[in-house]
């Protein structure tokens, strides 16, 4: 069954059409890769799904319900978490606090809880810390838990963003060029982690500029050029598609 279904999605910025009549879907448990040359509209697709921009037309359905008109935070609450292409960790919060932010939408304590600290609130705090520890260990960030996020090396910040997204208990994880700026070894390690995340039952949708990375990890691939879908299928199918070679590979090499 399709977890996410995008149909006839269009977004214009002024006179420029960033995404045009886009159709695709992601099946539960899959890894879908989206590739395309710079400016093809990949990040715009992410921003439309996560509710940062409203689309001009089209429909986005997640788990059976429409996401249109929802604000980003309620989309996250429904089970879609994301990372950003340019890293956006909370720079002056510690690594731990960054990941705790992800638990916000899964916990309930309010004003009275904060000030009176009843039993239920204390239990909630404990559960937050347990979850955070689990995600930090998984992302190999536990030793740096008390560092300020801005002081982490680049690759660690990328993993921190993923840990923070995982802390929201997503069903669908959206990764915007997770390997950008990483060296080859770091990139491989990251893809390994992404594979493990999928094994744990989370569906993944990722944008990558680097073809090699995407081909290795994705079950299916959608190719975007000038805001339009020009091909879709398994990595092998896409790789041999003449339109892809012309639009993407041919242009870049």
């Amino acid at each position, binding site marked *: 069954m399709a977890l996410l279904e995008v149909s006839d999605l269009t977004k214009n910025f002024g006179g420029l059409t960033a995404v045009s009549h886009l159709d695709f879907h992601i099946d539960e448990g899959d890894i879908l890769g989206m590739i395309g040359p710079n400016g093809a509209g990949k*990040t715009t697709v992410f*921003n439309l799904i996560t509710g*940062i921009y409203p689309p001009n037309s089209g429909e986005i359905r997640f788990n059976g319900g429409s996401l249109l008109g929802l604000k980003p935070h309620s989309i996250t609450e429904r089970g879609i978490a994301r990372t*950003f*292409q*340019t890293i956006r960790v909370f720079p002056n919060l510690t690594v731990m606090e960054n990941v705790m932010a992800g638990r916000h939408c899964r916990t309930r304590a309010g004003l009275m809880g904060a000030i009176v600290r009843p039993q239920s609130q204390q239990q909630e705090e404990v559960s937050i810390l347990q979850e955070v520890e689990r995600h930090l260990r998984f992302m190999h960030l536990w030793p740096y838990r008390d560092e300020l996020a801005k002081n982490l090396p680049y690759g660690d910040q990328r993993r921190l963003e993923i840990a923070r997204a995982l802390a929201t208990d997503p069903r669908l994880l959206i990764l915007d060029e997770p390997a950008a700026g990483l060296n080859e070894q770091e990139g491989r390690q990251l893809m390994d982690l992404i594979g493990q995340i999928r094994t744990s039952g989370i569906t993944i949708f990722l944008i990558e500029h680097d073809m090699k990375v995407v081909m290795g990890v994705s079950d299916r691939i959608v190719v975007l050029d000038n805001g339009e879908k020009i091909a879709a299928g398994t990595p092998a199918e896409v790789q041999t598609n003449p339109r892809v070679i012309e639009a993407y590979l041919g242009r870049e090499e």
Partner: protein
Amino acid sequence: MGQFLQQLINGLTIGSFYALIALGYTMVYGVLKLINFAHGDLFMLGAYVGLVTLMGLVVNMGMSASLLVLLAIFLIVMVVIALVGIVLERVAYRPLYRAGRLPPVVSALGAAIFIQNAVMLLYGARYRTYPEEFKAIVPEVIWTVGGARISLMQVVMLAIAFVLMAGLYIFVQYTRVGTAMRAVSLDHDIARLMGIDVYRIIALVFIIGPALGAAGGVMVGLFYGRIYFTLGWGYGLKAFTAAILGGIGNIPGAMIGGLLLGVIEALATGFVSDAWKNAIAFVVLILILIWRPTGLLGERVVEKL
């Protein structure tokens, strides 16, 4: 109709003062993203230096009040306040460029308190009046147009404001230095890479802004004839409002915002209630910002992801 025209003219006159002061806020904000809360007090200082210069030239040195003397007074005041502006930038702001958004605001408020109390110590807490001799420069001529009264003084004020603003606009749009200034307001680092001395541009902004505000100070002194040391607080707040209204950082925006605010105030006084005019001005500002969150001419900020 006559009353409407009258309030429009009054509003444009007050608005031109606001616009001149607003330019200082908007220019500093443009290059530094800093609200110079001391700017209103530089304006007030300008009004006092204008008074002192006038006393010196006309009363003490016995020059006859003429258009030439008026010009000289404006020139002297603008130069003096520009110097104060440079000192202010050096002492209170430059050390704080990397300190974040809030510390410069407190520093600016401290500088405002300092200037205000310095003026109070020097010239007293009571209001001071521009002497009668000054009136001779602009004779009291009043025309009646369509039921509204326009004085020569109002025409002169509007003319001075127009010349100063047009001059600034031409300078910023069509000269090399003006282009550099616009570049700095877009991006310090890239401007630096292009070979622009960013600190010199910042210093220049702290010359032009205060000079224009000081001219506004002399004009307020001339127009109302009476000045006091807390003058900068109210006018400063109004001018800052005008700058925001037009879209802070945008030079034509400050001019339009100033004139518009003056007109709103005058119309509120004439047609609604004098006691509520300041509140009405703020209500209009808030409504405009709800409609256009970055002011009338402010650029839409599109966040890059």
